[in-house]
């Protein structure tokens, strides 16, 4: 059992409905590990420090991706960006994977429609990788409202993670994870407004640490 891979970063009241599901074991296969849904809150994705009142531009942004490892459930230092220690990176609404033109790993992603709990297995293939030379999508998870994980609500001027979009990742070292992004605003605000602090991801995920596509 690799309990160190199942690390809850923070526990949150309503969100921490831990779906601990054990699968039945077969005699002739190694006992599969139980996987667990984990929620990460307020992962800062280069949110900056505020808005410059003189020109309306965000201040204090670094334009660096916040790298994240599903295996450790923790942020990976940017110094390790050339390694396979990280799986995904977040910079405001853009998400990169450690693969293709973004990294040296084997990571890829699929944006799937469905309910998080109902997706029990990772697809065998179809994982897109980042390709900065592409004219259609430079990222495995397409950017832009309605294309990938979010919808920009121009009326209310807020970013809303689209309901029913689940991101399936192949990690840098060929494992699988499924992710549902829940909020883009600090404190996982319910009904966010455009004055709330943006650039903070809250998401729940299930990581399969073994050589298996199962999310059970």
């Amino acid at each position, binding site marked *: 059992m690799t309990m160190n891979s199942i690390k809850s970063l923070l526990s949150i009241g*309503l*969100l921490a409905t831990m779906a601990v599901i054990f699968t039945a074991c077969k005699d002739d296969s190694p006992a599969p590990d139980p996987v667990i849904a984990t929620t990460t809150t307020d992962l800062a994705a280069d949110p900056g420090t505020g*808005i410059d009142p003189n*020109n*309306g*531009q965000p201040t204090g942004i670094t334009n660096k991706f916040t790298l994240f490892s599903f295996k450790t459930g923790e942020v990976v230092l940017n110094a390790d960006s050339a390694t396979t220690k990280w799986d995904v990176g977040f910079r405001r609404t853009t998400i990169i994977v450690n693969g293709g033109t973004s990294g040296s790993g084997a990571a890829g992603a699929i944006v799937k*429609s469905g*309910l*998080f709990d109902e997706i029990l297995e990772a697809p065998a293939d179809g994982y897109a990788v980042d390709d900065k030379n592409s*004219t*259609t*999508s*430079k990222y495995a998870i*397409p*950017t*832009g*409202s*309605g*294309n990938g994980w979010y*919808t920009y*609500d*121009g*009326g*209310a*001027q807020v970013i*809303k*993670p*689209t*309901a*029913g979009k689940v991101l399936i990742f192949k990690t840098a070292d060929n494992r699988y994870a499924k992710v*549902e992004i*829940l*909020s883009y605003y600090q404190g*996982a605000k*319910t*009904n966010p407004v*455009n004055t709330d602090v943006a650039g903070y991801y*809250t998401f729940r995920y299930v990581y399969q640490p073994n050589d298996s596509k199962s999310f059970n």
Partner: protein
Amino acid sequence: MILIFASVTLRTQFAKPLFCTLLIISQFCVAAQVSTDLDSLRTRQLEEVIVTATRNERTMGSLPMPVFLVPKAQIKTMGSLRLNDVLTEQTGLVVVPQVNGQGSGIQLQGFNPDYTLILIDGEPIIGRYTGSLELSRIAIGNIKQIEIVKGPSSSLYGSDALAGVINIITDRSQPGTNGNFSSRYGTNKTLDLSGDVSVTKDKLGIYLFGNRYSTDGYDLSPENFGKTVSPFTNQTFNSKITYKVGPKTDFSLAGRYFKEYQRFNFEVTSSNEQIKTSGTGEVKDWNINPVFTHRFSTKLKVIARFYTTHYQTETNLSLDNDGSPYYHDDFEQTFTRPELNGEYFINSKNIITLGAGHVGETVKTSRYGDENGRNQWTNYAFFQYEWLPMDKFTLVSGGRFDSNSSYGSQFSPKLSARYEVNKRITLKASTGVGFKSPDFRQLYFNFSNSAAGGYSVLGTEIVQPRLAELEAQGQIQSYLFDPTLIGELQAERSVAVNVGGKIEILPSLTMEVNGFYNSINNLIETQAVAITTAGQSIYTYRNVNRAYTSGLETNVSYPFARNFTLSAGYQLLYAKDKDVVQDVKDGNVYYRDPNTLVTKRLQPNEYYGLYNRSRHTGNIKLFYRHPVTKWEASARIIYRGKYGVGDIRGNIQGETIPPSDRNSNSILDVYDDFVKGYALVNLSVAKSLNCGLRFQVGVDNLFNYTEPIYIPNLPGRLMYGSVSYNFSKNNVKP
């Protein structure tokens, strides 16, 4: 003199003896006329005649499709001034703001304003600058009646008549010499001056109408810079000359000139800075419409008509701090149409109508990126066969073929039938096809909106070369949609069924019912196609959606006592995107509870439908009219039920408009926020004197209902007083 009348009315209460003495108008009173009201009462008892449904004069009762008529007398009692005032009170018609939250267009059977054809004397009004037509452009002082045909009428009128047709029939000269002058003054310093003169001598008839309307506008959100509606003034002139060329030949020449001027202030956002600007807006339109009618025999009538019209608008904004020009926008459209049609009575049971024509259209606008006009032409022919085998039964069939230079050809058939079951019950059913050709802006737009955040819209004709150009300049950050998939736009099409009838519940208590279903294909929507390196979106257009609108409309009218008529109208409406319905059914639509952040699957009964459609709308109206004392009064309650709002990029005052969606699925479901339903109460009282004077006071929106964010086109309470003077002499006895 008219001005004096207005100010006097405002300060005077309704005291009958006061008027004549106060205004020293006894000389008018000497020439008192025989009550015109009694005349109009008599005409009303005759069968009303409507031309829009078949392009020929037919009595209302004989028509197999849903038709409605608003007569002049009712418009006068209501105290309406502009077309939107009248239409907003009709069952099944909802006046909705245009894209930017300003102005007003008409929603009919759940269709957006772009899908209803609006005609004056059978000729289209142009100037659908943002898609819908601004109804307040039309003064109604010279209107004889408004005819409304519901259901697609492309079989007679071609493009744009998907939801229906609204035809404004204007006055023509009456026997003798007649005239009417009226003035009205009310809230927001709104002054309306109107006059018409009609002279008929031998074979010649001349009718002239003039109107000047000015208002100070109103401000629903004073905390913002600039008014919700800024002050504007407009003038309308209409003329109609009729000449009896021979015993069998008539000629008429109609013309219109309209001009509006507005000054406004508003704040724009430029590189995240709020900048105060001032601007002017100007609208002009004119048209000329000569018509020859010749009766070759009692059986054959041929009409040759020519129509040419021009619309032009210009907006200029300059910065308040240094007066430098900030934004310019102009738009110019011409529309020319010769048409020939004939009506042939084979016998009293078989009537054939045939017609053919040519439309030439040109648009020139700063929004196309150059000074060149864009042209389009349509050739068309239509036929209609009316079969009346017996009094109880009418069958109307027809179709029209349109061939257009840019979107190909369309055939639009229609079939309608009416059956009188007995004296009390009449049944009607019709089915037909309607279409709307892609408009110029969807084809040719090359427009960046610097006044609203800098987004760009590219029409389908230029989107690919423009994107290639931008790409070569390194201005494209990323594509949101594969531009090679953007093909030629197809016309939007609908197939509709209307089934209903008229039932006499009690003697004089009648109820009209109409159920409708419109199935719409190829709806054109905006499609975000790319993001520039400056982070601005580029949009184009694409045929995407399939939708339906369906519902039931009922009208009950009951003259429950002498001189009183009570009427009630109600419309139930379901308008849904068919693809969304299918997706919901397949279990592929989700919503995230905004409080718990838990995602669930949306159930079919939880999808509410398209934005901006109220499931329930209705009205209750009470009219009083005394033919002898000549008092008239009305009380009208107009209700619009709750509705949802999509993602609108703010209104003209720069306020954000929170959309309905609150659970991250971008569709309207029962868990979303809705704009609350509301009822408006309008009252009016009028009194006519035998000397030709008429006084009226009224209040619209009695309870001062406003909704600054979502319904900026609804002003608060409007009170008004008006006086008019009517004269006629040398009337030839009919």
